[in-house]
């Protein structure tokens, strides 16, 4: 196991920007995720760690070892590729044993280790199968076993679940997390799926356009997004703009662009935001924090018309038009009657759930 340090790493492809100034330290044993939309530079960063690209600037260290110029085959990382990249001309056993053969591990030891890992990923008895005789989920587990059997310092996962169907994706997600916890291996996970990132990671790095946006725990990133991009990329949210009209102690009064007066808390402000009278602010309000209000007047109560009501059984979701802004809410179904389209609705926005992002 080893920590990973990216020290002001840049990557340019010709004149095109790849990744700009990634500067992180991943702890030994940590489950760290690069999250972002496609083309954000997350895979480029991962490939630099694996050694398939060399950084244009900066250094990469595993523990105290500088690996910046080390070719990929000398890095001892285990990588699971998006499309698994299994060797189609080899059996399951041969695929998994490949890395051990390269390392000149004795036949008996290799056999023992391959069988142990096949047990771990629940592939017992599949050793002689050809790759094309496996289902997608099984191929995924072969790829994982092949990466783990060499006992890598670091496990690299490049969107490993994107080719699986929804149900299998969930199962495999637990499986990967279980293995990571059992083996305690430093894991770097690349994904564009925020639900995956949230549920598995110790920490997440959100990237966009080759630039790191935020690094933090899933909780931080969800509740304290630093900017509009992070707020809207992670989960669903209502983004309202407004102007600060008063600051009293910890309380901040904001007039929204559609004329509502809201009160938020100063401690819920991103370092990027400017909380002072007259400044404009961007507020992120998560739908699940908004409650249907039975009274139509009061602090932080807004009224609007129901645009859409959605009943999913466990939840009731509303999209209401409040002034010129839509407001999404999501609440647990408590058995109240559901408001129809066009009806007037009151919404209560708790002051502690308003986050000033910018």
């Amino acid at each position: 196991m080893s920590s990973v340090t990216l020290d002001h790493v840049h990557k340019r492809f010709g004149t095109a920007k790849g990744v700009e100034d990634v500067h992180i330290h991943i702890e030994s044993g940590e489950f760290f995720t690069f999250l972002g939309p496609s083309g954000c530079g997350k895979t480029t960063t991962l490939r630099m760690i694996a050694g398939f690209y060399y950084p244009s600037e900066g250094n990469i260290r595993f523990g105290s070892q500088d690996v910046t110029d080390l070719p990929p085959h000398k890095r001892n990382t285990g990588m699971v590729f998006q499309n698994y990249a299994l060797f189609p001309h080899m059996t399951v056993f041969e695929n998994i044993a490949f890395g051990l053969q390269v390392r000149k591990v004795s036949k008996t030891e290799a056999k023992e280790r391959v069988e142990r890992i096949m047990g771990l990923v629940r592939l017992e008895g599949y050793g002689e199968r050809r790759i094309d005789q496996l289902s997608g989920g099984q191929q995924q587990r072969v790829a994982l076993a092949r990466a783990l059997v060499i006992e890598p310092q670091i496990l690299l996962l490049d969107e490993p679940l994107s080719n699986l169907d929804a149900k299998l994706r969930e199962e495999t997600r637990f499986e990967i997390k279980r293995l990571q916890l059992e083996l305690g291996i430093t894991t770097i996970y690349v994904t564009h799926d925020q639900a995956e990132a949230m549920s598995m990671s110790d920490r997440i790095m959100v990237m966009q356009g080759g630039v790191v946006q935020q690094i933090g725990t899933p909780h931080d990133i969800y509740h304290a997004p630093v900017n509009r991009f992070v707020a809207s990329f992670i989960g669903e949210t209502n983004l309202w703009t407004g102007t600060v009209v008063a600051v009293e102690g910890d309380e901040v009064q904001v007039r929204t662009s559609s004329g509502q007066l809201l009160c938020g808390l100063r401690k819920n402000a991103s370092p990027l935001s400017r909380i002072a009278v007259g400044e404009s602010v961007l507020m992120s309000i998560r739908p699940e924090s908004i409650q249907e209000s039975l009274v139509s007047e009061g602090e932080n109560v807004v009224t609007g018309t129901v645009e859409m009501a959605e009943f999913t059984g466990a939840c009731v979701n509303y999209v209401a038009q409040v002034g010129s802004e839509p407001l999404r809410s999501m609440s647990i179904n408590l058995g109240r009657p559901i408001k129809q389209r066009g009806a007037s609705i009151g919404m209560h926005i708790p002051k502690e759930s308003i986050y000033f992002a910018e």
Partner: protein
Amino acid sequence: MSTQMQHAPAPTPARRKSITASPYFVYVLVSPLFFILLAYVIYPLYETFIASVNVDEEITWKNYARFFSLEHTANLEALWTSIYISILSVITCGIVGVTMAFLLERYDFPGRKILSVLALVPMALPPLIGVLSFTFLYGESGIFPRAIKELFGLAQVPFSLKGFWGVVVVHTFTMYTYFFMTATAAIKGLDPSLEEAAANLGANRFTVWRRVILPMLTPAMIASSLLVFMVSMASYTAPLIFGIDRTMTMQIYLSRTNGDLDMAATQSTILSVVSVAFLLIMRWYQGARNYQNLSKGVSVHRTEIKSKAGRTITMVLSFIATIILMLPILVLVLISFSVDGTWTVQILPPQYTLEHYIDLFTDSKTWRPIANSLQLSAVAVIGIVLFGVAAAYAMVRLNFKGKTLMDVLIMLPWALPGTVVAVNLIAAFSEPTVFSFNQVLIGTFWIIPLAYFVRHLPLVFRSTSATLMQMDPSVEEAARNLGASWWYSFRRVVFPMAWGGILAGTLLAFVQCIGEFVASILIFTPRTMPLSVAVYQRMYSFEFGTACAYGVLQIAVIIIVLFLSRKVAGDKVNTAV
């Protein structure tokens, strides 16, 4: 925007990269490939050009003036005849090839399956053998004209294949396969639902054809037209056997045999320019056209011919087609059993013997050309494989400037007529050069393998790069990630996965080398006489039996090899060229 740094390490200055990490290292890797292309493709072309402008130690364009002079029009006539034959060949091949492709792909009738296999028979005929079988069948003293003459008691043969039209007919028979294969692939790729959509929108059958089917086949048709035109321009054996002297390739041959070497060089250069222009047009066109097979896995619905009359007519027609396709091979087999020198004015050879086949393997004089061809081809193929695999890997996997140049240079000698390749090599290597290790190659063993190497270079290159392109690059990365060095992963992963493509290309290159005639005839020495030259010489000493036995042997080898390569690589072989 901020990066929340937790354990921020102190920045360290960037260090010097290792050699292999340098972005310029790739040029070290590809430079040998460029060197080979320079030595054996560019340099010979250049030497020929120099020979054409360097008359009596001075640089002059007078050879070109002579070529285009309106007083002695032999050269211009030759150029015109070549172009005329080529255009006619494109038209006839297009009609035959596309019609056959449509009938075989869209209709079901008795004999369809066998016909769709036999349609590819002309591919199994080496150029010289194909022309010979046609003269045996339809020539002035051929079996058919004579049979009809006897049957109706005519004084003269009623028709015979000769001259200009002989060349066109032989071209049609041997080259329609280019159209047939591309049209078949294109029709297979046509999504039947497009036609259904057009019909649903109210188009009648004719409109569907005119507005949907033909436009979608156009790219394939244009590509095949260019190809057939190029191959026709390069054709040498058909004009040679049918005695059409006024074609470019024949003029080059005649200029050389008359000792007018400047003129041969001039004619070669002009023909090269035409061929290269066509190669570039073809490349540009293939790059510009968009691939229209958007939907995949559609099954083509074949219309079954149900009416009784229809079935009878199609049965008769496909029977005739089968006969026409099979006859060239059958006649070669028949004549290969005939006693040499006995077939004079009869319809069919009068006496038969097994002797020629026994001689092939027992008489050392008869065996010699076979051994020569095997040896020459083996040497050439080793070179083709080493270069082809390396070049394909470089083209597909490495990133360097000059990729297009490399691709053009590899395809170039394939586009050049064999005659021109031979003339170029003679110009380049009749004196010691750096590229030939200070040796004169002309008159040695090595010149023929070199010609084969240059001519058939693209075969392994094309088939290997096609397979590599289908191979996901991350598979190789996975091997590297698991600790395999570049060489180990090449040996254990890349090579085994590309094996099918490499083998298919290799086998194809081998049969092409075995059948090569056009370049060989200009550069062989008595000690290294290859099989096809031996066939030609036997023909001219009226040893038809032996010549045909050689031919049958070649065809057998080709059929076996084509069959094998289809087995290993599926249908990919067809797209090799």
